[in-house]
């Protein structure tokens, strides 16, 4: 058994709210029944599945969660071995439930399964496009709100346009609060790292940037030196700097954000909700991503994708010689698949920037061999040939792109998935995490 519980109890007031735990009198029969249903859901949930447990959690309205909250604090206190004094039958029932769970399957396995249930529920909600209900009235919760009762508004966007707002999913902060209790030293717990990496990958795969930002803030706090967590944070920053996010900012937004960062007074209010979107100008996002990729590589020099992505940033930041050096190192590590494709594509662009057109063309050819239908590699080949004034060679890759439009959309081009970061592998990472618990 992991030595988690004793120290984790010390975290409890921070994560669950001391007030709720100290007022067992607020626990009602309804609270005890809701808590009992929740325990049943945790115990019965098939990891990664869409089952009755996920449905039960998804149906928890804000009012039901408010009723559940004091019982949850009591339950978790007892689960982690803390002594409590109870006076009502409802509270005593919850204590019994917690003692049973502590005995079997044990505090840590129960917490892990509970965290998985709530992350599964959050992910299923995204897949089904069903958002959790928010309270009918009142402003978004602040940082001191119990995780069960947290709610924020998030922007949703598609292809460069803001489509509207949705409720954040309380399952994520609640799952994180459960993960916080799993281990006294999360950085030493492989499950914690795997959970953050897999769930972040899912968020990036689905473009849940509003959820990802708070997720990664917590990951940074509990796993400050973990290479994958650093990689995920770097990816997030890099993705913010990509056109798919930058186009949400207006020229006025960028000017205002830069003015704010330089410490000067903004000339006008930020337009287009840039502040709420939480998107930094590309230069700022790219600088943060570069720093984080370098930290990730310091922790794990064999993290080849971090090096390849770092090289792309260096090229974007007009340092093609440094980019070329990093890519030489990355290619020497013999990456495969999409990472090798990216390495050749970026090495080609770096070589092109350095005036080495033949070298660029060779890299683009290698990329096109790996993914023969990849539009990006064919366009890169064509453009390099045109720069070399070789019109026939510029036209040949374009002719190889010829395909009816539906087939064109089905091309296997890793560049189209670049903005997913670790989300490219989200499905595999989630399967790996679920297998870890089984």
């Amino acid at each position, binding site marked *: 058994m992991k030595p988690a519980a004793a120290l984790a109890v010390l975290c409890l007031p921070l994560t669950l709210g001391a007030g709720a735990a100290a007022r067992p009198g607020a626990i009602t029969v309804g609270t005890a029944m809701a808590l009992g249903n929740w325990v049943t859901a945790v115990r019965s949930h098939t990891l990664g599945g869409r089952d009755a447990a996920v449905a039960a959690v998804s149906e928890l309205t804000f009012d039901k969660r408010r009723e559940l909250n004091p019982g949850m604090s009591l339950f978790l206190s007892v689960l982690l071995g803390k002594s409590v004094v109870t006076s009502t039958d409802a509270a005593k029932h919850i204590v019994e439930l917690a003692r049973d769970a502590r005995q079997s399957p044990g505090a840590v396995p129960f917490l892990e399964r509970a965290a998985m249930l709530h992350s599964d529920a959050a992910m299923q909600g995204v897949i089904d496009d069903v958002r959790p209900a928010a309270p009918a009235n009142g402003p978004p919760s602040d940082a001191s709100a119990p995780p069960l009762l947290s709610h924020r508004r998030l922007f949703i966007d598609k292809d460069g346009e803001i489509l509207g707002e949705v409720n954040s999913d309380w399952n994520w902060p609640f799952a994180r609060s459960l993960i916080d209790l799993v281990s006294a030293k999360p950085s030493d717990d492989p499950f914690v790292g795997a959970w953050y990496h897999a769930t972040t990958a899912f968020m990036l795969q689905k473009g849940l940037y509003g959820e990802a930002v708070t997720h990664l803030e917590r990951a940074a706090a509990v796993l400050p030196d973990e290479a994958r967590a650093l990689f995920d944070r770097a990816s997030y920053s890099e993705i913010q700097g990509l056109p798919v996010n930058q*186009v949400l900012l207006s020229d006025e937004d960028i000017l205002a954000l830069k003015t704010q960062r330089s410490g000067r007074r903004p000339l006008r209010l930020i337009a287009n909700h840039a502040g709420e979107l939480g998107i930094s100008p590309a230069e700022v996002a790219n600088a943060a991503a570069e720093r984080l990729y370098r930290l990730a590589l310091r922790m794990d020099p064999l993290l080849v994708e971090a090096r390849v992505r770092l090289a792309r940033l260096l090229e974007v930041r007009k340092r093609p010689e440094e980019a070329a050096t990093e890519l030489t190192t990355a290619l020497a590590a013999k990456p495969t698949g999409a990472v090798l494709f990216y390495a050749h594509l970026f090495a080609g662009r770096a070589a092109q920037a350095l005036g080495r057109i033949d070298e660029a063309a060779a890299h683009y050819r290698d990329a096109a061999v790996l993914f023969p239908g990849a539009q990006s590699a064919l366009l890169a080949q064509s453009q390099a040939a045109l720069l070399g004034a070789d019109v026939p060679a510029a036209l040949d890759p*374009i002719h190889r792109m010829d395909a009816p439009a539906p087939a064109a959309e089905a091309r296997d081009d890793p560049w189209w998935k670049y903005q997913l970061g670790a989300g490219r592998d989200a499905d595999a990472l989630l399967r790996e995490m679920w297998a870890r618990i089984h």
Partner: protein
Amino acid sequence: MTRRLAVALIAAALLLSGPIHALQKQSFSSGTLGVRVDVLVTDGRNPVAGLTAPDFELRDNGVLQTIDLVDSFDLPINAVLALDTSASIQGKRQADLIAASQALLDGLKPVDRAALTTFSHAVSQRIALTSDLPAVRRELLRIEPSGETAIMDGAYVALTATLAQTGRSLVVVCTDGYDTSSWLEPDEVLESAKRSSAVIYAVTAAAPRRHSPLKDLADATGGQMLQVTSSADLRGAFQKILQDFRSRYILSYSPQGVPSDGLHRLDVRVKRRGLTVKARSTYIGVAPATPHR
């Protein structure tokens, strides 16, 4: 044949071939590559007709050139449509886009050709340059919007359709959004545009919240970016583009006092006051080839 020779010959064909009728003297001579510059002169919003070669001043890398005016009336037009077919185009926008494209095709003559490129995140060269305009019309009706937006990739592929083609090339790029997924960077497409003789017109229905690289492309090739506020205005915009394109002057000259190859800065002016000139600002020259022995 060396590659360089091939390129030079293609460039020469691009610039010299076709039924060019000189209004004044024919300036091209054997062994010398001519340069042809498409110029639009407007008075306010209206094209100005009736100008002659002496009305223009053209400087190539700062050196005043002797120019001829070529009659563009019978020169065939290569009209390449590059249409945004990302998911946001669905519905009325799609119908308006197709109607606008049909209107542009209606304005073409039998000697003209058209091509159709569409782009979401995926670029598809649906119809290569053809005089079979009904085929282009039929393909327009097969558009099924989906996906994200790769404007630069789409513009580049459209530009390549004009490479090594005779006649005058017009590329019309139409989008309702911003680029979210191109591999090619705007400066790379700009560099490519300098290597083609096409004039790019951009039509955008996107909310004008950011500077669009399409404007740079249009400016660099002597074209124009038109902003429409509603897709219903696309038809008028497309018709105006063709009308403007037909009203353009074609200046030709053999560069004197400047090296043949490399980047050339062009400065075209009219001597009459109050008129606006739009012409490409640069071109990439190719040195005359020495036949391989």
